[in-house]
């Protein structure tokens, strides 16, 4: 992992700050305009990651780069360590008793495991969407989206505007604009999941991790989320864990195949699904096992 030069880093972040103040569509336009491949957002580099549950090694010597503003899909049979990898990126694995990780997960050249790194700032920059929609049951639609901003103690921001923008960004605005003060749990499953994505987007992270975000949803809701992921990648780096190979094919720029805690192969999605290098990958994507 080579840290980018200081000067380029400054430009990067200055631009990102500016963009924060601008409207989403503008931001997208701006992102499309900019030519440099690293100027839009931040990628994540994982090096020599080992993750354990107690004594059991769940992820073995894992190395991967998630490029900025791309969707990377993690596929593999259940128990292969996909979710563990994703949790290790924003240190959510620390919430599982007995789980620990070693190695390096770097965002913007900074290892999130380094001593003194504030875990809350890691998670503010690397958001997460879970398998089951989990809106806060005591909060209204509005408060759910605002929750991230309130919970992180953000000050000096226009809460209303940020919430409305996040709801528009996930395409939920027209569906909920008349019921912003109703409980978030009153929405349908697909709407709830988009609400949870809006909640994550509202904090304006750099990276969004999605742990099988559609596995609890019906096909129509799934399609909506997939379209949304495609839009979000203009603005965010996205890592999505999925069981569903068609889904990986539809949304991911690159796909990584995991087996028994190891990364077998990572490459452009079309290549992984049509012409993989590894025989195990081929057997998995052609449905021979898993």
């Amino acid at each position, binding site marked *: 992992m080579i840290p980018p030069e200081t000067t380029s880093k400054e430009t990067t972040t200055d631009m990102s700050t500016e963009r924060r103040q601008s409207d989403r569509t503008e931001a997208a336009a701006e992102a499309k305009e900019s030519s440099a491949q690293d100027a839009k957002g931040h990628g994540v580099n994982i090096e020599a990651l080992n993750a354990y549950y107690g004594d059991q090694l769940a992820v073995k010597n894992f190395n991967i780069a998630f490029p900025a503003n791309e969707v990377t899909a993690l596929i593999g049979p259940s128990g292969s360590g996909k979710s563990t990898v994703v949790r290790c990126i924003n240190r959510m694995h620390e919430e599982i008793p007995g789980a620990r990780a070693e190695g390096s997960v770097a965002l913007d050249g900074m290892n999130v495991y380094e001593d003194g790194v504030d875990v809350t*700032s890691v998670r503010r920059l690397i958001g997460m969407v879970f398998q089951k929609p989990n809106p806060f049951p005591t909060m209204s639609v509005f408060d759910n989206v605002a929750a991230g901003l309130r919970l992180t*103690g953000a000050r000096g921001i226009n809460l209303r505007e940020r919430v409305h923008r996040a709801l528009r960004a996930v395409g939920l605005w027209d569906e909920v604009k008349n019921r912003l003060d109703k409980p978030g749990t009153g929405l349908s499953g697909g709407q709830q999941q988009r609400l949870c994505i809006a909640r994550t987007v509202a904090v304006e992270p750099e990276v969004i991790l999605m742990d099988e975000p559609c596995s609890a949803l019906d096909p129509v809701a799934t399609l909506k989320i997939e379209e949304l992921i495609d839009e979000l990648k203009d603005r965010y780096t996205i890592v999505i864990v999925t069981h569903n190979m068609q889904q990986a094919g539809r949304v991911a720029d690159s796909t990584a195949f995991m087996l028994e805690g190891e990364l077998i192969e990572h490459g452009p999605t079309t290549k992984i699904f049509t012409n993989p290098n590894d025989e195990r990958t081929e057997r998995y994507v052609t449905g021979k096992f898993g």
Partner: protein
Amino acid sequence: MEASATTVSGGRSLIERSPLSRLPDQVLQWTLTALAAAILILIAYFFIRLIGQSSTAISHFGWGFVFGNDWNPSHLIFRGLPLLVGTVVTSAIALLIGVPVAIGTALFLIEICPRRFRTPMAILVDLLAAVPSVVYGLWGVFVLAPKLLPVEKWFASTFSFIPWIGGGTVTLYNYFIAGLILAIMILPIVSAIAREVISTVPSEHKEAALALGATRWEMIRMAVLPYSRSGITGGAMLGLGRAIGETIAVVLVIGNADVIGKHLFNQGYSLAAVIANEFGEAANTTLYKSALFEAGLVLFILTLIVNIIARWFVSRGTRTRAAGAVMAGVAVDEV
């Protein structure tokens, strides 16, 4: 703060390295841990202070305080066997009467009672726990004791050949009345734990028994009771702990006589009752007061042992967390 998390200047990284923002979390964690630890320290401190206050009586009477049979405050002699006997006898009566009824109630409510009557019936049984002990005492003094006196007299003379039961005067307030009130008082807690335990019997066990052609009762005997024995035993022990420590209801109906009663329907005393009844008189006599503190100490240790055993049984028989809540007197379905 929010600005520093997202902007970078002077080569600083995106990710914050500020230990300051972690301060509130650490303060909260330490505060909560300290509060939890304070409970342990408090219990230990109370225990030590109680021993300290009892030391005069302990050095005066030694084991004689527990096993000597002579409680004579006017001569400053405090050998408390009459108290211990009263506590043991009344608690035993409470268990003998209360536990079978409590288990029967629990079995009926969970296994036999039609579903729609179950909750209202359970609430009614739980209501017994809501009645304050002084109200049980009130009822015992003015209703139960006088109304039962003729029955007790008849019983004592009819079965006078049985030792410890007949063959003496039947007093208005006595061991039996105290034990009976205790039985009513421990009924809700024993029943609540029994219900909790019985409802966790896996339905496969019960269905297996029924599939073998067992009747409802045979199913209870074959599948339910063996599975829940440990938890029910724990519940009974918990009831025992309550009975041993109950003060106000007992002091009002046990008669407060400082000799060992000759039989079941004779008046006596108990460890808890003596403290409540004589504390005022003992106020200015060091040894007397110390003796009452020692009675409290014995009571504390006794209930501690019983509760430790009870907890062991209960946690073996149920999900531990539920057990804790039930032990605290809060049935899980209430919260």
